[in-house]
């Protein structure tokens, strides 16, 4: 049905190659997110899937059909655009009908589909309006309604929430997720917002420079990043990267004026890599005030000189220095206040989920 297989896909504009051999297999009914910084090729890849851009080489299958050379309208896909791309001279209803009329559906069927879609998205009261009379959130709903009406095999979403304000964005995010649960149709969704990626996706493809850096579940991407780029891009606040010297398969952290030899999970790999220095990647939530019952076998205690704190509400980020490099810790609000006034705090560091990178290449060790 709606499975998508992409094989060795490349795309070039003249001399410049923007997609450099993409291989992805998306299961039927899966919610895939393409994420990456701007210019990474994610939108181009989506347009190639839609057929709006020709593929330079490689193959593309939807279900069992090879659609590499099929016209966009015959691929049985629907797309929601960043600017919504609602037809400005048509009413909401005509916007939704348009795709069905073009495909010569019988009138009665169109009528009932429009009714169903409008009900599903709660836009029944907007059907007679023009797009210019709608708010951003309403336009977003209509754009989704237009895609939904055709019940295609695959939905493509091109940064659909980036034009909405923060609150509405969170609301619509939940709504899209519910919709996916309900319909079970394959979705390919492009975003540059890693929070959106984490919250929505079944699987995420992180892209950079026309190459898929990592393809996996949000859990894998977050906890087991393939390289420093992925680790850095995903997660907010961002992961700490501290350059450390290596000693007997452990790393040395200088904090609060003292040196600590800290145990890391990948001791064997580290030893065999033969590196003298290494980049330690550690998420802020692994650096906290001491907690009584945690023991992953990788806990160290140390003190941290706090330069500044940023309360976020549920917890407070504290900024200090390890090995002369900035490090963020995530403290409870109460401890955070104390840390700010005293300029120093006792912390526990859990390196059970620490990841190590080659300082030169950024590759995972």
């Amino acid at each position, binding site marked *: 049905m709606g499975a998508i297989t992409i094989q060795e896909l490349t795309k070039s504009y003249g001399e410049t190659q923007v997609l450099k051999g993409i291989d992805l297999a998306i299961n039927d009914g899966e919610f895939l997110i393409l994420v990456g910084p701007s210019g990474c090729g994610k939108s181009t890849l989506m347009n190639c899937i839609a057929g709006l851009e020709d593929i330079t080489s490689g193959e593309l299958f939807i279900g069992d059909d090879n659609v590499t050379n099929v016209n966009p*309208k015959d691929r049985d896909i629907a797309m929601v655009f960043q*600017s919504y791309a609602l037809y400005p001279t048509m009413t909401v209803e005509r916007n939704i009908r348009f795709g069905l009329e073009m495909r010569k559906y019988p009138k009665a069927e169109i009528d009932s589909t429009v009714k169903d879609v409008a009900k599903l998205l709660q836009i029944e009261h907007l059907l007679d309006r023009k797009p210019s009379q709608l708010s951003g959130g309403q336009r977003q709903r209509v754009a989704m309604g237009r895609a939904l009406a055709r019940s295609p095999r695959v939905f493509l979403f091109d940064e659909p929430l980036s034009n909405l304000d923060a609150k509405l964005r969170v609301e619509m995010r939940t709504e899209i997720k519910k919709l996916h649960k309900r319909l079970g149709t394959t979705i390919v969704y492009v975003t540059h917002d890693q929070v959106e990626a984490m919250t929505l996706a079944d699987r995420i493809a992180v892209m950079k420079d026309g190459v898929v850096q990592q393809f996996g579940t949000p859990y894998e991407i977050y906890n087991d990043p393939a390289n420093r780029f992925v680790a850095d891009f995903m997660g907010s606040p961002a992961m700490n990267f501290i350059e450390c010297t290596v000693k007997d398969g452990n790393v040395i952290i200088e904090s609060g004026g003292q040196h600590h030899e800290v145990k890391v999970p990948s001791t064997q790999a580290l030893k065999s890599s033969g590196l003298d220095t290494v980049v330690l990647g550690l998420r802020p939530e692994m650096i906290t005030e001491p907690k009584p019952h945690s023991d992953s076998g990788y806990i160290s205690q140390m003190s941290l000189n706090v330069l500044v704190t940023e309360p976020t509400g549920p917890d407070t980020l504290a900024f200090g220095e390890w090995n002369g490099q900035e490090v963020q810790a995530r403290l409870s609000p109460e401890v955070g206040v104390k840390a700010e006034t005293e300029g120093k705090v006792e912390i526990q560091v859990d390196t059970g989920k620490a990841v190590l990178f080659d300082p030169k290449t950024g590759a995972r060790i």
Partner: protein
Amino acid sequence: MSSMNLRLGRTLIYTLLIGFALIYLAPLYVMLVTSLKDIEEIRSGNLIALPENINFSAWVKAWNSACTGSECEGLAPYFWNSVRIVIPAVLISTIIGACNGYVLAQWQFKGSNMLFGALLFGCFIPFQVILLPMAKLLAWLGLANTVVGLVGVHVVYGITFTTLFFRNYYVAIPNELVRAARLDGAGFFAIFWRIFLPMSTPIFVVTVIWQFTQIWNDFLFGVVYSGPGTQPITVALNNLVNTSVGGKEYNVDMAAAIIAALPTLLVYLVAGKYFVRGLTAGAVKG
């Protein structure tokens, strides 16, 4: 600034503005009053004096019996010549311009930007440089001195402007609209017809007015490519004024000039906003 100075400044501004308005209006006023006088009064009175008796005979003569060279049928036949040239030329060049603009803005292909640049350049060339070969081409096609030939010339050299107008209008519309429609199953023409045309009314008005004014007011192509029976009104007006059979009749000249100017003046008064928009659009880039 004291309020005294301020008031003085305002008075000065208004005096200047109104003074210039009168200067700009003066020629039209002079034309009008002259056209309503008889020739005796013109000789005895002066430019700006109001006519003693309003007299429409100059208008009647200008319309249907004044001599434009050897013919003495007034401007009427030439007025209709102009109408016969203007209507098809405006329609055809506008429609072609709309299609071209749609392609150049929304369906770019390799080399389309270069093509646009080459077209843009055409807005600037002095027509003298194409006058001779175009005359040869028209003769070769058997279209010399015909209305069809003139229409063709106006279409060919009008397309540059109409394309420019439409292209600049459509280029502001996000390409996502075309993409959305393609996924909805609409083709090249369906997208143009059902999505782009319905939102093009303003630019159609601008373009039609621009082309209408340009072609109605054209003299160069008219004088070079028309024959005795197909001359447009501008050429006939010039002939009428320069024909000196039996003494100058300034009142007839002025009536004829107003008749020749009337259509474009009316368009300007009715749709001035669009006229100015076309002028500035055509000027800034063209």
